[in-house]
């Protein structure tokens, strides 16, 4: 049994220790807003907050998430910074196909929670998720909007 707090609820989960957090979220908890993109921590579509830090859940074994607090996109609007990020995302109309955007929003939320007014270099270091639709400029604009309102 592995215990973790996901979006404010403590779950006791009967999963093998090496099950990636991504698949615990998607298949055990039905939280499909977190996306599978590559499985090897390359693309960032699976990004969630683990104790407030952006992590790629496809490569985080369940045992490593044990006892920690996980925030997924489903609870993003309960997060004060996350709510601001979502509003900025909508205003900038950042998503196109949308598949990577859960991870992008989570990564931006972690960045702005830690660094409310990031420099372009800090944005670059934090926002490394792939978007095949190429919404990178809209994402940059959205982060700028969210930072302005911090």
């Amino acid at each position: 049994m592995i215990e973790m707090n996901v979006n404010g609820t403590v779950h006791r989960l009967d999963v093998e220790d090496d099950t990636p957090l991504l698949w615990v979220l998607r298949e055990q908890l039905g939280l499909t807003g977190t996306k599978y993109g590559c499985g090897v921590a390359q693309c960032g579509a699976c990004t969630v907050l683990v104790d407030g830090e952006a992590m790629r859940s496809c490569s985080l074994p369940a045992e490593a998430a044990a006892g920690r607090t996980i925030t997924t996109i489903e609870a993003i609007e309960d997060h004060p910074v996350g709510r601001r990020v979502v509003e900025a995302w909508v205003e900038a109309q950042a998503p196109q196909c949308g598949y990577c955007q859960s991870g992008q929003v989570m990564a931006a939320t972690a960045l702005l929670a830690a660094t409310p007014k990031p420099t372009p270099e800090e944005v670059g270091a934090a926002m490394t998720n792939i978007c095949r639709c190429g919404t990178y400029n809209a994402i940059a604009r959205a982060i700028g909007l969210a930072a302005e309102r911090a």
Partner: protein
Amino acid sequence: MRTEDALAAAMPPGRPVNLSRRGMFAAAGAGLFLGLALPARTPRAQGSAAAALRHATKVNAYLRIAPDGKIHLQNPFVEGGQGIDSAVAQIVAEELDADPAGFVVACAPPGEDFRVMQGGNVRFTGGSFSVRSSFAHFRTLGATARAMLIEAAATRLALPATALTTEPGRVVHRESARALTYGELAEAAAALTPPVNVPLKDPAAFRVIGRRVPRFDVRAKSTGKVTYGIDVKVEGMLLAAVVHAPRAGAQPAAVTNEAALRALPGVHSVHRLPGAVAVAADTWWHAKKAVEQAQVAWQALAGPVMAEDFSPAAMLDRLKAAAGTPGNTAEEAGDLRVALAGAARVIEAEYDAPYLAHAQMEPPSATARFNDDGTLDVWVPNQAPDFFLATAARVAQLEPAKVRIHSPPLGGFFGRHFAYGSANAHPQAILLAKATGRPVKVIWSREEEFARDAYRPLTFATFRAGLDVVGDVVALQAAGYGEGPMTRHFGAASLGNPPVDASIMEGLTGKPYRFAAKRVEFVPVPHPPGVNLGFWRSVGHSMNDFFFESFLDEIAHAANKDPFAFRMALLAHSERHRTLLNAVAELSGGWRRGPFQAPDGTRRARGVAMASPFGSEVATIAEASVKDGEVVVHDVWVAIDPGRIVNPRTIEEQVQSAVAIGLSSALAEEVLFERGEVTTRNFDTYQVMRRDRMPRVHVRIVESGAPMGGVGEPGTPGVPPAVANAVFALTGQRMRSLPFSKTRLSGS
């Protein structure tokens, strides 16, 4: 012929269309995809406006207005980020007189009523075809529905219809200040016979079309609330993971450790499929872990297997060996031989581009459920539901009428989700659902996706230009070599006479420049059946405009002319193109080639390119520098003329996206093989562009009033040549082989 027209024309009435020819059959091996056919269609009347609007008064098939006033619209096109749900709502809202924000749009099921293209006979989402092929249809639909609502109100109010008008969402009688909402009238209106020949609005009175209407799904996509195919959940379903043969074409003769696999946690069963092995389990993670441990005896049971010595380099050698072979004429003007013989100077060049993967962010999946009543439900990402229905019925051995196809929003597509035989996951889901007696969702891992995508073909082109003594072009010859997805999936018979594969040739053909003598030809050279070929964003243009516009720069250089002025001179006959070139120059602050020093101290230059893709015209300027031997692109300016437009904001966004993928393709993307196996199987080895290399993108829309063109793809093809031409201006290095990462650049 353009790709989109060829695609549509490849589905003619009166004979079955073989969607899956030798390649698919050979790759799939077991005959699963053989004879895949669509039934004959009703005769089409191309060019007839009435025929084009064959389904435009079927109001009840498309629209349902709920009592709360919400307008539910069935969209023949699938949403994948291009904004088509919002665009069709915007068009209908204009004529219906409604607020586009009040629409709820869903992807329509397969069926006759939703074949809105090519005289009302064809339906697919691709070729940047959606809005332009359905603009008149949806305007007519909206206007017809409005007339029915007015008629229903007239009956209700006992007034003549002519005394009534509409305001957004309601029918009003101004004199008595009475109004009825569409929601109140919908039921009565739906019972009326749709009128014909309802007049459309004067475009000068448009209040919705042309506006920056927000896309509908942005909030849902910003909060993880969209259900993609991979998220579909069906009661009682098993999850399945697959591994395909290391070399395409091989079949699983046996899984030698099947008993051990079945003993692994959560595993339900182990299956052999055409060209693949599958494990079904309680979760996908369990299925994936198990299937990756499968010990499989792969054998050449039927059809060819990828040769062990196959590589892109070997394929390129095969194409190069065909250089000089007389090809099939695609375009011809004047007497090329005479013109070349009389030229003061002849320059030649060869270009090539690699296999590309779509690399859409959502890995493929499919869910199949056989129902107690003998029907089958299939949820599968797709760009052509009728095609997928035909393939699903064939695999399931059911009458098409017993199959339902559900088309979820796409987590990116770029051409990935057509019916590509072995590159589709739904046949596997159907076979597994049949074998297990349970609903099954198959998900391909990213590694399986990169290994079994339908790739943009590796291509090769040769050019020859004759110049006279003052450096004017007197002769131009271009040839494209290979096999495109048109040949592969629709057969040589679909290519016309003489056969010309538009998916290999467009962009070498269709250029706006005028040359006294010109010959463009297609030299067919097949790719191995184990390499599946697909349509990739902007298709033939994605490589050919790079080839052509780079060579045009080579000619300008040889003639000692500025590449911008050189293009202007070749476009003396076309005000539309000169206007566009001037627009992009102005957008970039005036044409300057450089090299010049930028304020940050870097040495930069600019390149220009033009493209005529999918009915639109595009001019592109890129500014680049070189750092550590690699190109850095700072700004891209795009002027696009789609003739007429629906939503300028969506167009700007689509150009941003198209520029990104175009630049990505040029920088570092290529599918590699070793010993017949794909080696670029995840994003660590298949390099798609990340945020750090994204340039600023500036867009200007020019509405020339020409017939409406496409929007989703046209921004792509101008980018690679504009960048390459900038690099040449900067370094003197001419990049003739994509991707750029193969060339170490000098200077900085």
